[in-house]
C-alpha cells in the first residue's frame, strides 16, 4: 500500500516536471546546441545553402576581424551605459517608493513605472525618434538634441528597460525591515551610514538582478538602434545582416556566441559578488 502511494506520487511528480524539463532541454538547450554546431559549418558561395562539413574559419574570423571587434566593444559599452543609467535612476526612485511614499503614492508610482510595459516596443522607440529629431520637442524645449546616434540609442534603451530595474530594486528595498533602520538610527548611525552599511548590502542582490535584465536585453537589441541610432550598428545588426542579408547562417551562429559569452561572463561576475545567492 505504502509502495503504491510512493509510485503514484512519483508519477504525479513526473507528470508535473516532464513538460517544463523537456521544454528546457529540447527547445532551449537543444537550439543552443545546434547554434554551437552550425558555427562550425560553411555555406555554398553562390546559392547560400549550408554545407555541413567541419571548419573553424567562422570562429577565427569572428575573433580576428576588426569590424566585429569594434561592434562588440560598442555593444558592450552601450549595454553597460544603459545599466548604469538605469541603476542611477532606479535606486533613488525605488527607495522613495518603498520607504518614504504613502501607500497611495506608492501604488501610483508602481503603476506609472509599469504602464509603459503595456505599450508596444516599436511605438516607444518611434516616440523617441520623434522626441530627438532635429526640430523635435526636445530641441524646442531645451534648445538642444543629441540627434540620432550612440547617445540616442543609449537613452532609448535606458528608457525601454528601466521598469526591469525599478521593480526588483523596489522589491529589495521593501524587504528591508524598518526595524533595522530604526535600530541603526537608535545606535547613533548617521543616515548615510545606515544606507551604506545596512541597506546597501541588503538591496544589492536586487540591483544585480535588475542589471542582468538591462545588460542582457541591451546586448541583444538591434531594433532601437535602427530607429534612433543614425548610422550606428550594434552586434545584433551584424548578426542579422549575416543571417538574413548574406544568408550566412554559420557565420551568424559564430557571431552570436559573442553576446552569449558576454552574458555568461556577466552572470559569473554577479555570482562572484554573491548577489545571486539569496535573490
Amino acid at each position, binding site marked *: 500500500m505504502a509502495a503504491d502511494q510512493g509510485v503514484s506520487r512519483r508519477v504525479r511528480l513526473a507528470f508535473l516536471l516532464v513538460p517544463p524539463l523537456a521544454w528546457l532541454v529540447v527547445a532551449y*538547450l*537543444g537550439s543552443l546546441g545546434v547554434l554551437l554546431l552550425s558555427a562550425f559549418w560553411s555555406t555554398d558561395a553562390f*546559392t547560400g545553402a549550408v554545407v555541413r562539413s567541419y571548419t573553424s574559419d567562422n570562429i577565427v574570423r569572428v575573433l580576428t576581424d576588426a569590424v566585429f571587434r569594434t561592434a562588440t566593444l560598442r555593444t558592450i559599452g552601450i549595454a553597460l551605459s544603459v545599466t548604469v543609467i538605469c541603476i542611477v535612476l532606479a535606486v533613488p526612485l525605488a527607495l522613495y517608493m518603498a520607504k518614504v511614499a504613502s501607500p497611495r503614492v506608492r501604488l501610483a508610482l508602481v503603476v506609472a513605472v509599469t504602464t509603459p510595459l503595456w505599450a508596444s516596443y516599436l511605438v516607444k522607440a518611434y516616440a523617441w525618434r520623434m522626441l530627438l529629431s532635429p526640430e523635435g520637442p526636445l530641441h524646442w524645449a531645451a534648445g538642444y538634441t543629441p540627434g540620432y546616434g550612440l547617445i540616442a540609442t543609449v537613452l532609448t534603451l535606458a528608457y525601454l528597460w528601466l521598469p526591469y530595474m525599478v521593480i526588483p530594486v523596489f522589491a529589495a528595498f521593501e524587504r528591508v525591515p524598518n526595524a533595522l533602520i530604526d535600530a541603526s538610527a537608535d545606535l547613533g548611525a548617521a543616515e548615510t551610514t545606515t544606507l551604506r552599511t545596512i541597506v546597501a548590502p541588503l538591496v544589492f542582490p536586487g540591483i544585480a538582478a535588475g542589471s542582468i535584465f538591462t545588460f542582457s536585453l541591451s546586448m541583444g537589441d538591434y531594433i532601437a538602434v535602427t530607429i534612433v541610432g543614425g548610422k550606428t550598428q550594434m552586434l545584433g545588426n551584424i548578426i542579422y545582416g*549575416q543571417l538574413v542579408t*548574406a544568408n550566412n547562417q554559420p557565420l551568424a551562429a559564430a557571431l552570436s556566441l559573442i553576446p552569449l559569452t558576454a552574458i555568461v561572463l556577466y552572470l559569473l561576475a554577479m555570482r562572484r559578488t554573491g548577489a545571486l545567492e539569496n535573490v
Partner: protein
Amino acid sequence: MRNTTRRLGVALAACAALVAACSSSTTSGGGSSTAPPKMEPLSALGNGEGQLNLVAWPGYAEDGSNDPKVDWVTPFEQKTGCKVNVKIGNTSDEMVQLMRTGQYDGVSASGDATLRLIYAGDVAPVNTELVPGYDTISAFLKDKPWNSVAGQMYGIPHGWGANLLMYNTDVVKNAPDTWGAVFPGAAEFKGKVTAYDSPIYIADAALYLSKTKPELGIKDPYSLTSDQLNASVDLLKEQHANIGEYWSDYTKAVQAFESGTSVIGTTWQVIANMLTSDDKVKIATVLPKEGSTGWSDTWMVSSKAKNPNCMYKWMDWITSPEINAQVAEYFGEAPAQTKACEFTSDKNFCATYHATDAAYAEKISYWTTPQKQCVDGSGDNCTAYSEWVDKWQQIKG
C-alpha cells in the same frame, strides 16, 4: 555540482547529435553556378486549384485591407476562384529565404533576387504563351540577364523604376545633377546625407566611379573585381563620415526628410511622391547624368508550386492593362504593360515615370545579384554578393 555539469553536458551532446542527425538527412539544395537545374515550364493551363500563396513586395498584392479603395486581389479571387494568401517580403534577401521554404507558389522578385532563385532551382521557367498579356509588355524588359537564362524567360515583368537623387530645395540650392553631390560633395551637408541601407548600394558608388574614374575600368556596377570593389568601398567609407542615417524602410526615409534629419540622398519615386503630397518640405528629384541604379521586378513561379495554374492566372491578371496600371500608380513605378498607360487615373502617369521610354530605361543599371562569374559575362574574377555584405558591414563600422 560537478556531477550535474557532466550530466548536463551529456544531455546537451545528445540533443545536438539528435538534431544534427535529423537535419543532415535533408539534402542541401543548390549546385553548380554555371547552369540552372533543367526544368520544363508548364505546357498547358488547367483549372485553378482554388488557392494561391504569394511572396510580394508591400503594395504589390493589395486586398483592400490597407485602403478599401485599393483592391485588385478580391476581384481576382472572384474571377478565378483562387483564394490568395500574401506574405510580404521586406527585402530581396528575405524573399529568397521565404521561397526556399517551398511553401509559396510565386514571388515578385527584384533583379538582385531572381538569379539566386533561378540557379538554386527555386523557381521554374515560364511559358510566356500561357500569359496573353505578355505580348504587349515593354520590349526592353524581355529576355534580360536578370529574368532569363539563354533565351528562356523565368517570369513575367511587372514594373520598374530608378533610384533617384532627392534633395531638400530649401537647403540644397544649386540643383545638383550628379551623384557626386553625395560622394565628394557630401561634406557640404555633413550629418544630413542619407543612403540606402543595403549591400546593393555599393553598386551606386561603382556606377559613379565608372563615369568619374575610367582608369578603374568598371563597365557594369554589379560586376566588380576585388580592386574595383575596394575602390567603391573606399568611396563609401568617405561618404560614411557625412551620413546622418541610412534608410531601408521607405516610411523612415519620408519621415527623415520631413524632420530635416536628411536633406540629400538616394530615393525611390514613391518616397518623393509621398513627400510631395504631404507638402511639409520642398523637395526635388533628379536622375543624375551618370545614370542610376534601379529595380525591375518579375513575377516568378516556384519550382515546387502546389498551385501553378492559379499562379499563371495571377501573372496574367497582374500584368493585364487595367490592373497593372492600378498597381503601378499605387506603388509609384513604371508599369511593364505598355497598354496600362491607357488606364491610369493620372493621364500623365506614364510620361512622369517614363514608362515606355526605352532610352530612359537604358540609363538604369538594374539590381542584379553580384556573382563570382561576372554577371556581364566579362569573366570569372568578380566579387560575390557575400563579399559585398562583408564590405557593407565594414563601411558601417
